[in-house]
């Protein structure tokens, strides 16, 4: 396997799908010559032309709504939403329109569209360019939600998203764009199916269930635990919708202890849903309370002195894991 960046993996996935299927096109703000501010799409307009890599005006509700209409009528749009924070601008088109067309029509209409956007704080981008809003869309039936955690995942999940007949929101970790990792050669096409969590490490003492940016935190925390003589299961959730409950529950039933990590705000977040399902369905296997780590319930602050602590990190994850394993959890 080659080693390429997350950004290159995304670019390859889009290019391969554009080559494969002429009904696929991509639009968004500064996606063509500019290749987005993150340069993820550089080179695509040169190969596919401005008819398929389309610069839109700065009109997020407009171009998301138009993508819904285009998807309803025989094309498969990939929409680039420059920052995850802009989801708030497109909520009606995404949640009232895209998500509900299949259902409201009794299954007669479908919306095969992909909304690519991003998540992740600690980039010193302050409160309106740093949010991780996956729970917001995962709450709406009719949308699928994918959260790649590595270059390989980014490519495989995005290719599956393009081929899905439903609206898929895929969140890329914008801090990971330059991260490198192994990805299969282009001729070895890999589609990562939705609804199958990925067990990255196998252990006995604790389960670390994580999404996207937090998978890296979980993996490093597992290493920290190893140094203390403990082993952890590390589960990459991959897709919040559909959620592979079985893999998560099997892991927790085995280890009896779990920390759930997601970079969205902790309250009412993705970690809450996963923790609740564990409490509901693996209660008698638990040896310790279920712990959730999400971002603090504060708007993301600008100052580095403030920002870093608001996101779950390795040190606190290891500390908490040791408490759970050693039975040192204080009873309130």
């Amino acid at each position, binding site marked *: 396997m080659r080693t390429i960046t997350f950004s290159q993996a995304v670019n390859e996935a889009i290019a391969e799908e554009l080559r494969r299927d002429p009904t696929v096109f991509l639009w968004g703000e500064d996606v063509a010559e500019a290749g987005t501010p993150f340069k993820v799409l550089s080179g695509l307009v040169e190969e596919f032309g401005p008819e398929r890599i389309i610069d839109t*005006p700065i009109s997020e*509700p*407009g171009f998301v709504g138009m993508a819904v*209409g285009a998807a*309803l009528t025989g094309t498969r*749009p990939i929409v680039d939403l420059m920052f995850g924070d802009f989801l708030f601008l497109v909520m*009606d088109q995404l949640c009232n329109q895209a998500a509900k067309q299949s259902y409201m029509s009794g*299954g007669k209409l479908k919306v095969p569209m992909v909304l690519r956007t991003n998540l992740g704080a600690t980039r010193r981008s302050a409160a309106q360019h740093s949010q991780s809003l996956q729970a917001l869309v995962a709450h709406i039936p009719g949308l699928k939600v994918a959260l790649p955690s590595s270059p390989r995942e980014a490519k495989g999940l995005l290719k599956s998203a393009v081929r899905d*007949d439903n609206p898929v929101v895929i969140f890329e970790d914008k801090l990971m764009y330059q991260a490198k990792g192994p990805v299969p050669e282009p001729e070895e096409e890999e589609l990562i199916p939705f609804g199958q969590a990925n067990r990255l490490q196998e252990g006995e003492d604790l389960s670390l269930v994580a999404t996207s940016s937090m998978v890296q935190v979980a993996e490093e925390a597992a290493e920290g635990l190893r140094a203390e003589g403990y082993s952890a299961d590390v589960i990459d959730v991959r897709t919040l919708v559909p959620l592979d409950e079985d893999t998560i529950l099997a892991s927790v039933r085995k280890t009896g202890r779990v920390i759930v990590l997601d970079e969205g705000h902790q309250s009412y977040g993705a970690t809450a849903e996963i923790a609740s399902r564990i409490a509901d369905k693996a209660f008698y296997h638990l040896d310790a309370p279920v712990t959730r780590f999400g971002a603090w319930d504060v708007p993301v602050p600008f100052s580095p002195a403030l920002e870093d602590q608001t996101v779950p990190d390795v040190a606190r994850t290891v500390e908490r894991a040791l408490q759970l394993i050693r039975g040192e959890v204080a009873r309130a």
Partner: protein
Amino acid sequence: MTARKTTRKTTKTARKAARKTVDSAGRTPEQLLEAYRQMVRIRAFEDNANELYLQAKMPGLTHMSSGQEASAVGVCEALDERDKITSTHRGHGHCVARGATFRPMFCELLGKEEGYCHGKGGSMHIADQENGNLGANAIVGGSTGIATGAAFSAKYLGTGGVAVCFLGDGALGQGILYEVMNMAALWKLPVIYACENNQYGEYTHIDEMLAGNMLERARAFGIEAEEVDGQDLLAVMAAADRAVARARAGEGATFLALKTYRYFGHHVGDINRSYYRTKEEEEHWKAERDPIPLFGEVLLERGIATAEELTAIGEAISREAEEAVEYALEAPYPPAEAARDHVYAS
């Protein structure tokens, strides 16, 4: 639709207005007669839907389009099977005009399995998708993006189709309309914004909600804009023909301001309307500007139909509607477990 309404005596003004556009739409007599039938079908559908609601046989809420038949039929008569429409919460008329039939429509209204949307849409999302109806949308302005996107894909795929976005004057207050009009103009998309200006957004007159002139809003984007008498079927048809021709020729979008009137309230329960419009105004529109007798008069004058024939059309459609209502009332509900189907396309 009762026979009495069909043949109601029209006034001199109305006759004059009808004559003015009598030769402009270029349709055969049979096509004109069918357009008349379509308007009568809409009226009959709405009369029966209203009755179902008043008798508490219909769940939920509904919005009547009675009075607006000519805009729905006039625009849809300009379309063919390549074309798409999007509709609004006041969408029964568009659905009929695009070719839907009574039985699955009433079934949908009553939440029955045989409804066009298997009972999952109801009045506000009713649509015959196979006839190019991309759905009635209950968010004001909510389908403007969808219609414009459908126009984009028609152009992208080279289908030759056009997309019509039916919207009410209330939707002129929604920002997304201007975002998509901008892109429609930039990219010369084959889209028609058919704005049914019934002069009231819910319970408020347009003068209290719209600054400036609505046509100028479209023209600011370089979009062709035209004001049309929405009660004059032939005028609407002719304007829609021009817009469709422009769209198919690659000349881009058109905005049609179709001035019309809704006879009922915003929704069926909106009975006491005196705080926002007068009885006299309502009576004026019904007596002087009803699109059905106005167009019936044209058919009579041109010798396309006799008064007796028009009466017979009204009676036959009334019977058909009543039969469909009976059918829908007896039709089975979907099984409870169907609530979990269709959340995702399979």
